[in-house]
C-alpha cells in the first residue's frame, strides 16, 4: 500500500522504528517460545501414566499468563514525554498494537493444545489469553507497563489454588481461567475483561513511568 493511500484512508501506521521502539521483535520471539513450550508441555502431560487431556490445566493457566506478560511489557514506552508531542493521535496505533499481538498469541496458543475442545483445549486457551491480556492491558494503563504482569499473576495463582474441582456455578465467574471450556459465564468474564482492559489502554495509554 502506498504512503499516500494509507494517509487518505487514515490507517494507523506502525513503521519499523515504532516496532523497534516497543521491542516488538523481542516480544514476537518471546511469544513463539511460550507457544513452543506450551505445546510440548501439553503433549508431555497427556502422555504421563494415569493422566489424560484434563492434565493440560496448568498449561491453560500458565501460557496465557506468560503471553499476556510479554504483551504488557511491549506496551512500555521509553520516550513518553516526547511521544506526547506526536502529531497523530495515539489510540489507533495502540489498538493495532494490542490487536496484532492478541491475534498472534491466541492463534498460536490455540494450536498448541489440539484435541478435546470441551475440556482444556483450544477454546479454553483462547478465552484465557483474552482474559489475561485484558487484565494486563488494564494494568498497563493503571499501574504502568513495568509491573503490568503482577495483577494477573497474583489472580491466576490464587484461582489455581482456590478453584473447586467441579466446573460451572459461581466459580465460572470468579475462577474463569480454571473452567474447562464451554462455560458461558467464564467466557463472558474473559471477553468483558479484554474489551474493558483493551479500551482503557487504547484510550489512556500506558501510565507514564519515570525515565
Amino acid at each position: 500500500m502506498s504512503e499516500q493511500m494509507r494517509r487518505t484512508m487514515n490507517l494507523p501506521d506502525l513503521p519499523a522504528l515504532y516496532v523497534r521502539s516497543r521491542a516488538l521483535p523481542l516480544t514476537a520471539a518471546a511469544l513463539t517460545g511460550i507457544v513452543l513450550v506450551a505445546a510440548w508441555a501439553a503433549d508431555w502431560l497427556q502422555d504421563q501414566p494415569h493422566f489424560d487431556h484434563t492434565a493440560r490445566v496448568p498449561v491453560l493457566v500458565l501460557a496465557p499468563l506468560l503471553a499476556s506478560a510479554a504483551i504488557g511489557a511491549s506496551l512500555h514506552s521509553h520516550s513518553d514525554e516526547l511521544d506526547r508531542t506526536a502529531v497523530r493521535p495515539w489510540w489507533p496505533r495502540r489498538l493495532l498494537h494490542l490487536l496484532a499481538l492478541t491475534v498472534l498469541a491466541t492463534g498460536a496458543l490455540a494450536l498448541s493444545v489440539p484435541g478435546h475442545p470441551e475440556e482444556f483445549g483450544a477454546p479454553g486457551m483462547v478465552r484465557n489469553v483474552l482474559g489475561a491480556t485484558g487484565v494486563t492491558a488494564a494494568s498497563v494503563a493503571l499501574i504502568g507497563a513495568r509491573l503490568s504482569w503482577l495483577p494477573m499473576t497474583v489472580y491466576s495463582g490464587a484461582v489455581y489454588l482456590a478453584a473447586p474441582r467441579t466446573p460451572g456455578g459461581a466459580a465460572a465467574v470468579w475462577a474463569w481461567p480454571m473452567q474447562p471450556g464451554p462455560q458461558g459465564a467464564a467466557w463472558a468474564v474473559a471477553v468483558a475483561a479484554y474489551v474493558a482492559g483493551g479500551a482503557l489502554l487504547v484510550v489512556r495509554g500506558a501510565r507514564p513511568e519515570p525515565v
Partner: protein
Amino acid sequence: MSTVTVRNARTVRVSGLTVRHRRRTALDAVDLDFAPGVHGLLGPNGAGKTSLIRVLATVAAPSGGRVELLGSEVGAVTDHRSRSAVRRRLGYLPQEFGYYPGFTVREFVSYVAWLKEMPAAQVPEAVERAVARVGLADRIDAKVKTLSGGMVRRVGIAQAIVNDPDLLLLDEPTAGLDPEQRVEFRALLRELGETSTVIVSTHLVEDVAAACTEVTLVEAGRIAYRGTTAELTAIGSNGADDSLGDNSIERGYTAALRAHRTAVAGR
C-alpha cells in the same frame, strides 16, 4: 537586527494560564507573549518554568486560561486539530527524556521526525543535518546509551530541531554540557532565534546573558519581571548591592526577584 519586522508577530500568546498539580498551583493566571527571538525563562527551582514549557509544548493541559501558539488556540481539550497542526512546527527538549535503549542517534532522531509526521523522503537528510548542528556527526550511528550525559543532552537538542521548528522549547538544555559545548550551543541558539521563537528555561543566568535577547523571570507561579537582557543587566549595574551577585546580570536577576517579592508581600 534585520528581523525587526518578524519580531512584531507574536507567535506565543498566553492569557490567564493556570496550572495546578493536585492542590499546588504551579502557574497562577499568567499572561505572556513571545515573538521570534531567543527568550530566557529564569527563576528559582519550583517556580513553574517546567510547567509553563510543558503547556507550551502541548504535552500538559492547562487547568485554566488560553494558549495560542503560532496563531492557533491549543489550550482546550477539544483543540485536537489545531494541536496537531502546531505540533508539526514545534520542537521540545524535555528536562528528562527517555529513548529506546537499542536506538542509535540516527534512529532516535528519525523516530522523533516520524512523530512529527515529516515527509519520509526528507527525514534522512534532516536527521543528519540536526545531528551535525549539535556536533555529533561522527557519533550518528552510535547507540544513544553508549554516549556520555552531555552527548545525550545534545542528542536531545538534535531531536528538538530536526523539523526546523518555528517554536522551540528547551527545558534546561545546558545541563551536563561542558563550558566549550555551552559556548557552541549558545551560538546555535542565536542562529535558531533569527527565524524561530526559542524559549529556554534555565537557572544559569550566564546562558541567558550570552544567548537570549529577552528575559522572563518566573517566581512562585507568577511573572516577576520581563525585559530585555540589557535591561536586566542595567538593573544590576546601577548601584546594586555587590552581595546580590558576581556580575551585573546576576545582580539584576536577584534585584528583580527581590523587588517582586517585596511587591507581593506588600499587597
